[in-house]
């Protein structure tokens, strides 16, 4: 676990910049993620939000859950808008129209649809140009805001309303796009994956990303969605934890070329524990589950090889 800045939750700022009273679903982990992100970022922050669950659930005019400046423009362009915000602050500081000594965090916030799919081009452009923006992807693995349609972030065999399980189909036919790897291929200073069940690891990664001075940072956060994944809202963090315990989700960071798995898993659980508590995988046969397990095994092997030692251990239960 990364423990660079915060060693316990008690060390986090007490101030809240994400106000209660928004209309996210009960048990939605996006609220947990955004609240933590803003605590770490503090008041000198501008958030550029793509269209999505967080945007619609937090800004029903004339109300807002944002105690920091916030802008939403469209679905596919959070990275482009954030690029403009960053460039403007740079030049306005140079021209003395904004206090040049004031550090202003610029955060782009988008879901999986706004990142993997429709926002992918804008994201790649922003990364290539090297804007000083922290891009946070909250990944609930489908278009939840429009009613659980498949996205490039939907995992293999998951049921969604556009990849139903029937006599011919058994959920999504393709595996999840490795978005964080693709982002890392842009050779930006900092890329990390995070999980709200590993809260300290997550907030420390937020902090690290905000402190990177030499270019963009990208944090990919898994966000269990009770509505779309079909589980009891009280289980969001349990589901999130199981994702890492089964290595369905590996918490890692790539800091200036140095790769680390920040949450090692010495003893790995079988993926069935993660899949069987979610309705979206209800249609899976034991065979299907084994296919997903083999997929994870290969990924674990790849990551261990990358690290040079066994950070993700063998299957034990």
């Amino acid at each position, binding site marked *: 676990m990364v423990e660079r800045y915060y060693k316990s939750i008690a060390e986090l700022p007490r101030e809240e910049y994400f106000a209660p009273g928004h209309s996210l679903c009960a048990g939605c982990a996006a609220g947990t993620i955004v609240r933590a992100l803003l605590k770490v970022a503090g008041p000198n*922050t501008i958030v550029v939000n793509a269209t999505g669950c967080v945007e619609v659930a937090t800004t029903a005019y004339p109300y807002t859950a944002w105690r920091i400046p916030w802008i939403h423009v469209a679905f596919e362009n959070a990275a482009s808008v954030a690029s403009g915000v960053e460039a403007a602050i740079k030049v306005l500081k140079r021209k003395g129209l904004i206090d040049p000594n004031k550090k202003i965090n610029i955060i782009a916030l988008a879901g999986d649809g706004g990142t993997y799919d429709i926002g992918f081009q804008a994201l790649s452009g922003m990364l290539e140009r090297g804007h000083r923006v922290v891009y946070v992807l909250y990944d609930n693995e489908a278009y939840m805001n429009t009613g659980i349609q498949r996205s490039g972030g939907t995992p293999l065999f998951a049921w969604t309303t556009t990849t139903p399980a029937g006599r011919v189909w058994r959920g999504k036919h393709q595996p999840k796009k490795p978005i964080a790897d693709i982002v890392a291929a842009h050779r930006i200073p900092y890329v990390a994956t995070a999980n709200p069940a590993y809260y300290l690891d997550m907030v420390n990664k937020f902090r690290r990303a905000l402190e990177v001075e030499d270019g963009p940072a990208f944090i990919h956060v898994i966000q269990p969605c009770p509505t779309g994944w079909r589980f009891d809202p009280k289980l969001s963090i349990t589901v999130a934890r199981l994702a890492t315990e089964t290595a369905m989700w590996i918490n890692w960071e790539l800091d200036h070329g140095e790769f680390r798995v920040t949450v090692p898993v010495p003893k790995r659980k079988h993926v069935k524990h993660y899949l069987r508590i979610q309705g979206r995988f209800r249609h899976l046969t034991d065979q299907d589950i084994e296919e997903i397990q083999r997929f994870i095994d290969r990924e674990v092997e790849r990551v261990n090889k990358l690290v040079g030692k066994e950070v993700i251990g063998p299957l034990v239960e």
Partner: protein
Amino acid sequence: MTEVKWKRLPLNSNYAVAYAVKDCDVDVVAAYPITPQTTVVEKISEFIANGELDAEMIHVESEHSALSAVVGAAAVGARVFTATASQGLELMHEILHIASGLRLPVVMTIAARALSAPISIWCDYGDVMNTRDTSWITLIASSAQEVYDTVIQAFKIAEDPRVLLPVMVAYDGYLMSHTYEPVYVAEDPTPIREFVPKNPKSRIVLDPEKPVTMGPIARPEWYYEIKYQQVEAMKRAYDVVKEVDAEFGKRFGRSYGVIETYKLEDADVAVLTYGGIFGTLREAIDAMRSSGLKVGGIRLRLFRPFPYREIVDAVKHLKLLIVADRAISYGARIAGPVAMEIMSVLYRESEKPEVMSVAVGIGQRTVTEQDFVELVKLGLKFLEEKRVPNETIYWGVRGVTYG
């Protein structure tokens, strides 16, 4: 106030834009290359590279991102600029509505170009006319000098607290974007910058000292009122456009009005058009006048908000008004976008001319003086025979004849 000194340079309209952007001390430029707009951004890049303009240039990966980036920059209070044409403008279309909905003073120039398919890199106004309902103030210039002057005016109009709407300045692709003309530009930008002073604090911006939520979701009980504010802003813009042009004239000695007329006072018949071909029309009018025809010309300089007062006053004494549009609204009986506007404006007037709608110069099909002479002849024939057509004439298209 600093005395302005002009230098006379040979510039095409694209370069005239770049000089105006530099002289207005723009903060952020984001653009994506598209023919025939490219040299606008090349020239601005040169100015930044040489230190003549202190701005951030964002080399975006698409026009959609170009407009998105300047929207972001404008939202924090920067003076912003972008430029495009044709397909690029189409790709921006979604964000056109958002820039105006967020009430951000973005300025953009368009080197007007025909739309695909088939792909055409040449001029018509299909791209500009497609933006009609996006709530952008739209000015169409007809010379490189007017382009330079209008871009300067555009910043003042857009940033006026009574307006706060984006402004589009269009001109003919190729016919103007790549045609050199003598242009007077400021030797020292100081007087221009005094004319368009910066005051980002006069509007709501993203500022951590004073947090705002920009671009929220508006439910049915609020959306309508917010959009109605745009209706009102457009109404105010009508006066502000004129006011700024008059002030520019007073300060710098050049002004254009919202429409321009040529030999109209005693005319029986007039041709109305827009953009660079107005010069061709004037030549044709001179030729027709010398053979005794009482012909006049009108140029539409402001398309949105539509200058209905000036149009009504200018045309009411005419017997026939020929509206030469450079775009087609497919499936409409009167398919010229400006002809449609004019006919709807004249509907309630008791004193009004017959209106003949004509499509010309589509995909840069050449329009010569002779075309205007023939069009006027045809129009007068129709008028005399009391059969001015109720549908648009597609002038110059092969295989179709009128008469």
